């Protein structure tokens, strides 16, 4: 029986008069790839932000590996092994790619490296290896701010892998990426999940991508959980179709 690595129970969050999340409950199974879809403004990013600690939630509970995290700050949550990537892609734009990778190493209490670890040894090797994995090895010495948007997205993804997280929340990973490169990204996501054992939870707008990638999908609409299930089921669910096309 695979347990849930993240459990969201009856979480609500409002910003002033705007009810971004209303009574949301969902679960992410350990080792799986879970998708979150829904029309614009339905509360997907708010949910992510609540999970990773960007703002407090009004009601409900969020647990990670069984422990309550809804009152923790971003840093401690990240150190538990729960990372997220940003929709607008955030990297250390003034440092080069290798340095971006090296500093993304895990800082959890069981980390192998101390504060003053050398930058030439094992950390460097892993950094180069992961840069190779995402196809950025040839650009590794360039200042990351000079890369194209798509390349920065790949770098951010590689940095997340460097951190050896248990769960990775990805906020629209294919947005803004050249369609020809999307397959490569999906492939790498799947490999990260299968080879490195990282649980993925992905917000996506690209239906083709998410239907092929995820094992279980949640659909939000107007701040509420609309439906969830396997990709084929949701594709045929009238409510989901209405939510995207109906626009209310």
């Amino acid at each position, binding site marked *: 029986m695979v347990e849930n690595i993240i459990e969201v129970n009856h979480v609500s969050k409002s910003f002033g008069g705007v009810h971004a999340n209303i009574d949301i409950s969902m679960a992410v199974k350990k080792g799986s790839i879970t998708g979150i879809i829904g029309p614009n403004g339905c509360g997907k990013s708010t949910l992510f932000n609540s999970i990773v600690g960007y703002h407090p939630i009004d009601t409900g509970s969020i647990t990670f590996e069984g422990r309550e995290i809804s009152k923790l700050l971003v840093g401690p949550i990240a150190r538990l092994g729960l990372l997220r990537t*940003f929709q607008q892609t955030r990297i250390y*734009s003034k*440092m080069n790619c290798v340095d971006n990778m090296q*500093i993304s190493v895990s800082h959890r209490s069981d980390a192998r490296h101390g*504060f003053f670890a050398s930058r030439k040894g094992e950390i460097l090797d892993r950094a180069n290896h992961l840069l190779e994995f995402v196809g950025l090895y*040839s650009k590794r*010495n360039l200042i990351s701010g000079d890369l194209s948007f798509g390349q920065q997205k790949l770098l951010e993804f590689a940095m997340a892998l460097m951190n050896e997280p248990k769960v990775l929340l990805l906020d629209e990973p294919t947005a803004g990426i050249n369609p020809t490169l999307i397959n490569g990204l999906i492939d790498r996501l799947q490999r990260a999940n299968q080879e490195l054992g990282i649980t993925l939870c992905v917000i996506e707008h690209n239906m083709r991508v998410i239907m092929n990638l995820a094992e279980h999908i949640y659909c939000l609409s107007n701040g509420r959980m609309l439906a969830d299930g396997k990709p084929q089921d949701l594709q045929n669910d009238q409510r989901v179709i209405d939510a995207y096309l109906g626009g209310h």
Partner: protein
Amino acid sequence: MTGRSYLLYAVILVLGVFGPIMFPNYTQQMALLWVMVLMASTWDLLGGQMGYNSLGNITFFGCGMYISAVVQISMFYNVADYTSAFGAIKPEFTDEQYFTGLFLGILAAGIGSVFISYLFGLIVFGLRGPYFAIGTLGIAIAAGQLTGTIDYIGGGSGISMPFFPGDIEVRAGFFYLLCFILAALTHIVLRWIYSTQFGLAINAIRDDEDKAEAMGIPTLKYKQIGWAITAFFMGCIGAVFGNMVGFIEPVEVAFPVPTFGIFMVAMALLGGKGTLWGPVLGAVLFHIIKEATWTYLLGWQWVALGLILIINIVYFQEGIMGWLQRKYPEFFGITVDVSTREDGKEAKADG
């Protein structure tokens, strides 16, 4: 280290060690130069490398000064009696007593300042940007004011430091050497930590602290360690400076916020903040300018220095090293060009 670096260090070592022999009339000025190098370099650790611009690092300078004074005197005399006598008690130290007191004092100054940095860090490290700067500035000013109220350490009248056993030239040379050694030690330590993961971490905090937190970097710990290192060396040099000057006093000598307190920032900016050599270069230049204006513009030297600071900040933000690194990146091992390189040169800048 490249051959260029070895040469540079060799030159500095020679100048540093033989300076007072070559230019005996300038020994005190050169000692002061090393003090400034240390101040600018340690400021840059938090300010340039981590992006936390403290205006109150001088607090550790003064604390170290007073801690050392208390340690040195209390080993053989009652401190309260000594300070209230306002110099009427002339302490008789044997040579051995003087030097043990001095070195223990310096050590205590460094360690005590680390502890103080931890305490203040608890207050100010939750703040960002201008609030952090103003908070630290307030602490430095308050430190000077409050020290003047504590009679145990002499209050507003200050403390006379124990006399150095030996004639004037030996004294000058001795303290010069102490300043040089401390400055060199600081540089070596900073150079080393910048080359480790620590250096990357503090740059990451500067670049995007929220991203760093989101990646699990324990930013508070890095800030604390960084400030502790700063405090240690500032405390030590404060102790040495107090002994060198011979008489310490709260606002003018120990916590001189509008002078040394801001000089360290000006020097780092002039030379180029966020680089290893920038603060050093800035300190040297600033010191030379300061000495020159003292001699030729007496009365207006502070005005000149203030103007330099403003012009630097407003018109020349990146400083000399920053400008050089932008103009000649390959010289410093920075890779810029996208298309032509398949395999870049050494990734991190040496300067």
